[in-house]
């Protein structure tokens, strides 16, 4: 497994898309953080960039990469390697490469310009989003045989989580605002990794305002470590479950 990860990484380090992705992230981070004298505002811009770009780029790039590697995966599977090992190694390589890109592009500038807990949370969220959306790309890869359909599904999935889901949630809140919906809301929000990532940062950046709302559950959730732990827990599930699922489907997949 380690061998495959190593060589996938060696391949991806020289990949132009990954390099451009890293460079753009770094350019955005530096311009946002270095120009403004106010780091919390810069951090917020970076949060927006992270919530928008990381899911879409990770998803698309990983999907395309997986589909392009089909023949190589076939060749490797003709070797005495378990399918699960092969798939997870391929995933790890891609997820690792994209994570490194994010760490260099956002992590390093953030640590240089504003090193505090909120920044670290932002980096953690970005890394989680990378892992999650690469894992979702893997699911798409094992479910679809056709590359074009797969890329289409990837775009739809990414858009759903970055924009559509929140719109639906907002209309849900508006229509049921007279009912106690705090608890169902926390449940619903766990269904969207982008929201989870956002809330993880929010819990560090805006706790003060969260404390201002009298909803007992919200306050308990937002105001203590519970919220962060719950969010991290859910996001870990968002990595693990797609991986397990794709491993299961891949076991029966015809190449």
């Amino acid at each position, binding site marked *: 497994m380690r*061998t*495959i990860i*190593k*060589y*996938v990484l*060696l*391949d*991806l*380090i*020289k*990949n132009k898309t990954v390099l451009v992705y890293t460079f753009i992230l770094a350019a955005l981070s530096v311009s946002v953080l270095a120009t403004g004298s106010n780091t919390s505002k810069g951090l917020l811009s970076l949060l927006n960039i992270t919530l928008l770009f990381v899911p879409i780029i990770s998803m698309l790039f990983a999907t395309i990469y997986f589909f*392009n*590697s*089909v*023949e*190589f995966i*076939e*060749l*490797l*599977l*003709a*070797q*005495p*390697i*378990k*399918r699960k090992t092969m798939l997870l190694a391929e995933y790890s390589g891609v997820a690792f490469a994209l994570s490194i890109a994010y760490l260099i592009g956002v992590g390093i500038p953030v640590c240089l310009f504003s090193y505090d807990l909120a920044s670290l949370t932002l980096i953690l969220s970005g890394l989680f989003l990378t892992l999650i959306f690469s894992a979702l790309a893997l699911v798409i890869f094992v479910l679809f045989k056709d590359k074009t359909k797969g890329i289409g599904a990837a775009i739809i999935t990414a858009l759903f989580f970055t924009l559509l889901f929140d719109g639906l949630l907002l209309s849900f809140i508006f229509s049921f605002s007279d009912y106690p919906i705090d608890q169902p809301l926390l449940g619903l929000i766990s269904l969207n990794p982008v929201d989870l990532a956002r809330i993880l940062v929010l819990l560090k950046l805006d706790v003060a305002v969260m404390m201002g709302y009298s909803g007992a559950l919200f306050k308990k959730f937002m105001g203590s470590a519970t919220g962060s732990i719950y969010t991290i827990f859910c996001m870990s599930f968002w990595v693990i479950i797609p991986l397990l699922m794709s491993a299961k489907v891949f076991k*029966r*997949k*015809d*190449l």
Partner: protein
Amino acid sequence: MITIEHLTKSYRKFKALDNINLSFERGQAISLLGPNGSGKTTLIKSILGLVIPESGTIKIGGKEIKKDWAYRSQIGYMPQIGRYPENMTIGQVIKMLKEIRKDCTRFDEELIELYNIPAYQNKTMRSLSGGTRQKVSACLAFLFSPEVFIMDEPTAGLDPVASEILKEKIAKECANGKLILITSHVLSDLDEIASHVVYLQDGKLKFYNTIDELKFLTGEDKLNKVIASIMKNEQPKKLITV
């Protein structure tokens, strides 16, 4: 060496393999023939475990391959299209496979030398021509000196010289008692090396005979003519010796 019983596989409504029964032994060079979509690739992918059969069994060396993945160490596979990670060099690909196959200590690098691969070992896969990539695929198939060779259209895309080198190598391994499975529709290439012919059509096994039998039955001397005459006469039934 390889025993296939009642192998069936369908994709949705399309039957790719329909109740195939076959048995191959060491020292045989089997030419797997059939028109496009006849199930050749599905058959070899089933043997490689890349396609999961619907029903039927495949045994290699007497052991069923279903749950076992280690058996693949006995197989050298050369795919029809060799696509590799774009930014990897030839050297890295070879090194990677060697690292994956830690179980193997004795490498057969004859083909690597014959193709003069070390000369371009720092070239990335992206920059290579299709022919060179095929050469790399061939080298990898032989690298771990397996017992069984499975080659999907091995000479397609190779230049005549390289093709000749490959054929000689295959013949040599066959003589060493290895089992060789080749799919191809360029028949003449395989004249000299094939000892048996398996003919598939619409997922069904049409016949499985030795070359000599076929030549005798059809009165033709060249393999492609043999096949052509069989396809024309549409009389394969009595040939089946399964």
